[in-house]
């Protein structure tokens, strides 16, 4: 069936900001979908509030709206663009929910927009628990005993029938927000109450517990001719009870016989047919009772999902791209498999390796959060790895996580601790399993505690036994060079042991092991991900490393006809001449065991089958950013992808190395060659040695590749762009101080301390408040602002082990300073400012957590000019080649009258430099979207020698609109965690609001971050004493605009003294009804709440938590409140309007 010609223009909804449960996998799927549909000649209208996405690049769609994902905005877009169809299945739950709303309200019908991919009834049937269950019964599939509950009373009745433990899942929430397991009636009541509130339709599914059952997922695709294929099966390492997003998962399914697998496959096909997803991908989850084999259907996602991104990367089958083509009418057999070229997409990928996904958690950012893994997702990212065996892929995945682990390191714990860590699912459980095995616990006993299938446990046991073998052999050989040791080293590498882990085991250094390994010719080979287990030739160089033994060819073969070696893809086979064989031969001959074999196999040549086949083109390796975590997310993947695009434009061969399956960078379509590998020095060096690139780009992937810059350079690898020495000059505290001194630039006063005493002395010298942090962690971890000696000594005791190698850094905290970020690009001669961002929140709040505005919205222009001058001076001094980010704090001189300050004048302000990072920053995509200048692309070109002049960039782009970025936080995922912002970064993602002026742009950014600013109603104000004077003006204006103000006693008194009319409300401690009651009753429309001091913060926590829970918009800073005020002013004046990015930039 050919594609549809009755539709011309298709609307695609993105998934919005990165949040837990919805990460960059939807950028990957959305981008693929856009590309696939435009390829077919359709016009694409795209909406997404997240500027850090590839999909919102102006080239990806015909009209791109970086606007809030709300009903009213979508209606405006549909009215303006008049698309023929809406594809709702690419933007996660967010897009699906919006599509349902638009469809149910009749809006789509009114404007003649057809839902393609999945129709409303199918979406409803899949998403509504009750309808889904009914559908499953109809096709004779088993489901857990359950009931959809809409009231507390029903809930209490039904639980008698279902029994404990029971699982609760609120309907229509992201990643199972608000779900959980209740073991008793008390927990049940609590979870049910919460779930009913959280569900937008006030419905909670209560269900029979299948805790401990085996969990599986199938990725299914269907076309409009009803052809159905299974793309991938996934078996969860963690049993039922841990959200699949938080589980270690493995592809393909490992412990099902063919009969059992086919039963599941048949069921999946029946499900997609019954639910009626017309075309595209779906994900279906199953649970299997490990003792009886009873199979039940858990749920289905009628759209592409996180698992489909994983399945795409695991198999090489691009689910989203194919789903998009199916949605416009193609059938599977009409679409080509890109990898094999000759075969169609109507097949089921078969793989000859094992894929392991491990989630990445950031509980260290939320010490108050409960770190137990449950049915509610808590991980912020994931890594995937590919190995020939489960053992290899597991160990590769562990070192991909970048949490300092190189494998299954021992944990120091007694047997009781171990048991409790096994019993309660947690992020470190895998290490405790290995430790339990080391301490002699049996697989059966571990199974009883964890319900993790013994097959997985036995594999871990083999890894632990290999550790013993390595140690014993090293001891016995007396050295690590004995023949037997070399044999066991080979086995260990096949098991996926890293050099570092082996080094730890036998008390050597990683470099020693690497050299030893290289001397014996023990190098990885690279195999292709080809969708077909080598049955057909593959044309896409999507590679993973493994260790394989050689095979041997009879001598005469080599000298005989070249015919046998027709396949040019094996380098060792490529040439018939003896020369060509040398590599392969020497590689193996150095190996002790191979020598032995050679003597046994006379006249035979060893061949190690490696499919990398590097080209001799000019090429560059781009190192990716690894798993998403707080502080390093999609922004860096965006930059890496742009580097790839830019270098491709200059006809370089681009080679991507990354291990994050959610990303666009790990699409085999993005770079010319993709190595799906951990970003460790070992794995990266192996690739570099194979590929021999001109250079490596480490600037774009955040800390992950940056950390490798110096070790790589030490190994003689050329680092492109700004030199590692310049990076060091900016990062090393002492050298940085000298640098600023040389340029006559200012820095907040600072000092370092090795002890508590020293810290107190330093603080006394520079004056409180001070910002303290340990020197060895990055990204604002364990950073705090302390206001007095007591807090400082407390911090020193609590937070850190100070030592001469790792002193504590103490900086003067600039209170009430305005923080400014600058991104600039330089070719080593010219420096162009990319954007100056004025933060909304004051300095001291992590820059990643602050909202900010391009252009600056309150700073006088001469200050902005001075900031630019300083940034340029820094770039020149550091010989930046590529990107640079500088963080400034601007503080008004205290002696000056406010009037003088308002008139501007550099003399009235002090400009401090907080930090310089000569690399791509988190704000690059936002700046690029705001200004229309593709900074990352330009930077990549500059790094390989182009000048800015050559690229036509001679001056900064001035914009006439305003773009505001706002951060998105995962607080709703972590009950009990405070929403107060600080120097520690906590946000997972960002949105952008763009409009004619600051007020509207800010309002949009707030709306996009689910913090919609009201234009009427009641505003609750409770501020710390220091903020009270600033509050007067705000309160006055709000009152004048018709808002009713409410405050607790102190604030009310203060405001009334200034002549503002305020209603009184009790604090929580003052009796009822109190402020939290009011929030729960949704009698408040906005909350302004600032606090200082631990006690006050604790007392008012319930206000902020309940605001969060009941989705009442709030701000926790005065600067935020001021911005809100400007937004309200504009919202009252103007109607909401929209404009595409293309319109903004073409006019600009």
């Amino acid at each position, binding site marked *: 069936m050919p594609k549809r010609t009755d539709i011309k223009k298709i609307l695609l909804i993105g998934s919005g900001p990165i949040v837990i449960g919805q990460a960059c996998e939807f950028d990957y799927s959305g981008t693929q979908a856009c590309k696939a549909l435009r390829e077919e000649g359709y016009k694409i209208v795209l909406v997404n509030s997240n500027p850090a996405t590839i999909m919102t690049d102006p080239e990806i769609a015909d009209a791109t709206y970086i606007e809030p994902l709300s009903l009213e905005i979508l209606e405006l877009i549909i009215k303006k663009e008049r698309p023929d169809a809406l594809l709702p299945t690419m933007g996660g739950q967010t897009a699906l929910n919006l599509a349902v709303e638009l469809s149910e309200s009749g809006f789509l019908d009114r404007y003649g927009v057809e839902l393609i991919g999945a129709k409303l009834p199918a979406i409803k049937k899949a998403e509504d628990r009750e309808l889904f269950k009914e559908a499953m019964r109809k096709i004779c599939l088993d489901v857990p005993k359950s009931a959809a509950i809409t009231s507390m009373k029903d809930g209490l009745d039904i639980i008698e029938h279902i029994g404990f433990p029971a699982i609760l899942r609120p309907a229509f929430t992201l990643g199972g927000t608000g779900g959980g397991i209740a073991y008793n009636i008390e927990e049940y009541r609590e979870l049910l109450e919460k779930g009913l509130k959280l569900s937008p339709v006030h419905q909670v599914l209560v269900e029979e517990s299948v805790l401990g059952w085996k969990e599986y997922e199938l990725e299914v695709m269907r076309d409009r001719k009803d052809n159905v294929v299974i793309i991938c099966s996934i078996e969860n390492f963690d049993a039922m009870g841990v959200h699949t997003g938080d589980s270690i998962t493995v592809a393909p399914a490992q412990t099902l*016989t063919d009969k059992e697998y086919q039963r599941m496959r048949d069921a999946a096909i029946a499900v997609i047919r019954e639910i009626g997803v017309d075309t595209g991908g779906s994900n279906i989850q199953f649970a299997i009772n490990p003792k009886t084999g009873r199979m039940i259907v858990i749920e289905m996602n009628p759209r592409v999902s996180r698992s489909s991104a994983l399945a795409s990367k695991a198999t090489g089958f691009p689910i989203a791209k194919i789903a998009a083509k199916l949605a416009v009418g193609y059938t599977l057999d009409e679409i080509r498999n890109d990898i094999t070229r000759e075969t169609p997409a109507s097949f089921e*990928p078969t*793989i*000859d390796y094992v894929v392991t996904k491990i989630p990445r958690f950031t509980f260290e950012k939320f010490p108050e959060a409960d770190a137990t893994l449950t049915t509610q997702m808590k991980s912020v990212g994931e890594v995937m790895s590919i190995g020939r065996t489960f053992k290899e892929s597991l160990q590769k995945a562990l070192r991909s996580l970048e949490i300092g682990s190189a494998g299954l390191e021992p944990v120091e714990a007694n047997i009781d601790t171990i048991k409790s860590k096994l019993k309660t699912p947690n992020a470190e459980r895998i290490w405790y399993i290995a430790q339990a095995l080391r301490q002699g616990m049996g697989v059966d006993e571990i199974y009883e505690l964890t319900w993790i299938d013994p097959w997985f446990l036995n594999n871990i046991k083999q890894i632990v036994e290999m550790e013993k073998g390595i140690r014993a052999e090293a001891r016995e050989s007396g050295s690590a060079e004995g023949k037997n040791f070399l044999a066991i080293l080979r086995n260990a590498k096949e098991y996926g042991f890293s050099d570092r882990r082996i080094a730890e085991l036998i008390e050597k250094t990683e470099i020693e092991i690497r050299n030893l390994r290289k001397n014996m010719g023990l190098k990885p080979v690279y195999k292709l991900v080809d969708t077909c287990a080598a*049955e057909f030739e593959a044309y896409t160089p999507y590679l993973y490393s493994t260790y394989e033994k050689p*095979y041997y060819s009879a001598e005469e073969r080599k000298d005989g006809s070249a015919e046998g070696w027709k396949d040019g893809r094996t380098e060792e086979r490529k040439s018939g001449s003896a020369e060509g064989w040398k590599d392969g031969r020497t590689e193996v001959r150095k190996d002790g065991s191979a020598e032995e074999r050679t003597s046994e196999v006379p006249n035979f040549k060893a061949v190690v089958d490696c499919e990398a086949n590097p080209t001799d083109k000019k090429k560059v390796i781009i190192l990716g950013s690894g798993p998403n975590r707080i502080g390093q997310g999609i922004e860096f993947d965006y930059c890496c992808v742009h580097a790839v695009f830019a270098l491709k434009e200059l006809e370089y061969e681009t080679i991507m190395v990354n291990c994050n399956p959610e990303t666009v960078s790990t699409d085999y379509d993005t770079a010319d060659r993709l190595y799906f590998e951990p970003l460790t020095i070992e794995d990266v060096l192996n690739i570099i040695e194979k590929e021999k690139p001109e250079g490596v780009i480490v600037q774009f992937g955040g800390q992950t590749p940056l950390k490798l810059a110096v070790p790589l350079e030490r190994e003689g690898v050329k680092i492109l762009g700004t030199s590692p020495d310049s990076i060091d000059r900016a990062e090393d505290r002492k050298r940085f101080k000298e640098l600023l001194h040389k340029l006559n630039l200012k820095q907040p006063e600072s000092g370092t301390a090795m002890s508590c005493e020293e810290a107190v002395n330093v603080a006394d010298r520079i004056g409180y408040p001070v910002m303290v942090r340990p020197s060895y962690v990055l990204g604002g971890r364990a950073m705090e602002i302390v206001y007095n000696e007591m807090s400082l000594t407390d911090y020193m005791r609590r937070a850190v082990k100070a030592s001469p190698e790792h002193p504590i850094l103490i900086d003067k905290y600039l209170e009430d300073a305005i923080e400014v970020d600058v991104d600039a690009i330089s070719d080593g001669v010219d420096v162009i400012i990319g954007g100056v961002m004025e933060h909304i929140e004051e300095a001291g709040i992590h820059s990643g957590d602050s909202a900010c505005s391009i252009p600056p919205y309150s700073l006088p222009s001469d200050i902005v000019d001075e900031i630019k001058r300083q940034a340029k001076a820094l770039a020149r001094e550091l010989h930046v080649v590529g990107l640079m980010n500088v963080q400034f704090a601007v503080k008004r001189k205290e002696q000056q009258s406010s009037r003088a300050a308002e008139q501007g004048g550099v003399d009235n302000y002090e400009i401090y430099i907080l930090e310089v990072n000569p690399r791509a920053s988190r704000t690059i995509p936002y700046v690029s979207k705001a200004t229309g200048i593709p900074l990352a692309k330009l930077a990549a070109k500059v790094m390989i020698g182009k000048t800015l002049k050559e690229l036509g960039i001679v001056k900064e782009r001035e914009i006439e609109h305003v773009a505001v970025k706002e951060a998105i936080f995962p607080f709703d995922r972590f009950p009990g965690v405070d929403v107060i912002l600080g120097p520690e970064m906590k946000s997972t993602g960002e949105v952008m609001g763009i409009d004619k002026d600051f007020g509207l742009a800010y309002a949009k950014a707030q709306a996009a971050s689910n913090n919609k600013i009201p234009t009427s109603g009641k505003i609750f104000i409770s501020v710390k004493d220091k903020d009270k004077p600033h509050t007067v003006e705000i309160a006055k204006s709000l009152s004048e605009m018709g808002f009713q103000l409410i405050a607790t006693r102190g604030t009310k008194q203060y405001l009334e003294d200034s002549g503002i009319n305020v209603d009184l409300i009790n604090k929580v401690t003052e009796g009822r009804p109190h402020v939290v009651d009011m929030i729960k009753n949704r009698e408040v429309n906005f909350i302004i709440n600032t606090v200082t001091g631990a006690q006050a913060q604790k007392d008012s926590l319930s206000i902020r938590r309940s605001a969060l829970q009941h989705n009442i918009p709030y701000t926790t800073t005065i600067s935020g409140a001021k911005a809100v005020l400007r937004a309200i002013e504009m919202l009252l004046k103007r109607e909401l309007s929209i404009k595409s990015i293309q319109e903004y930039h073409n006019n600009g």
Partner: protein
Amino acid sequence: MGKALLVLADGTVFEGMSFGSEGEAIGEVVFNTSMTGYQEILTDPSYKGQIVTMTYTQIGNYGVNAEDIESSDGPKVEGFVVREYLDFPSNWRSQMSLGQYLRENNIVGIEDIDTRALTRYLRNNGAQMGIISTVDLNPESLLEKVKKHPAISTFDLVKDVTTKEKYSWNEGCWKIRAEEQKSRRSEEKTSELPNFRAFELKWVVVYDFGVKFNILRNLVEAGFNVSVVPAQTPAEAVLERNPDGILLSNGPGDPETVTYGIENTKKLIGKRPIFGICLGHQILGLALGGRTYKLKFGHHGGNHPVKDLKTGRVEITSQNHNYCVDINSLKGQVKLTHRNLFDGSEEGMEHVELPVFSVQHHPEAGPGPNDSTHLFKRFRKMMEEKC
């Protein structure tokens, strides 16, 4: 476990470890790309004379059980080649480890070789004879042995695997116990229905060229009484018993070596509805006067898309064959009904007039997808139409 060698007839040597029985085995080396179903593959009589390499790397995971067999008396493969054998089966139905099973049945198994390298080698150079040995570790002597061994196309393997005696079969497809109970209950209900005649069983005689049990099970599911007869059974003897239909089963080796099968089939065509599967399809092709040819490395796996040319539907199929029918050589007599979308090869045909049809792939699955099991119903319907 000790060392083992796999030597291909062209002198390529793979060294690994033994995980099955001690000994030596010679056969045509082929690869199978199914990720599950090693037990079905091992016991599939079509693999007689072949050494099977699994492209999936983790083998042994779920052990072996008494249910998932495709023939009696243990594995039919000559030898088994895997990347990693895992000796700790984990599955509620597992009764024995794969290693033990191979040892008990005297099948050699070799692990710890680069099976992807071997697969690519076979893909590029074609299937060829090979030898696995755990006892003779001298590659040159092994090479000599394998070179001396006749090629697979030179002898009839069917006679090694066909049943000695005729038998009848009444076991249906595998269902797990809980479901079995459920369906039994529903059967009880249906038996109370008045129009029970609609479920009247038809009688099929299966020519056993190396039949997979799943063919028999699927015939039972489709409503047949099933009798299985030895491959050499004269057509006359079958027709005498007056069955409703005849199924020509799958089996090993080169169809041209099964001369008696071809001759008997010639006599059956037009007399009774015939359904041919795999080797049965090839024998039918030859009996109709067509020709067959050998593929470079065959089709062995569970993911090949086959298009039903009548409906346009694509089915994901189980495949296991090295030979194909050149349907063009039967022009005018038969119509091409199925095509393999991977390589365009011809997968199925039906006679233009007579109730005779056949497919190259395996509608019975085991291992592989159940997408094509409807063909058994089609066969059954053919008989109803005839009545």
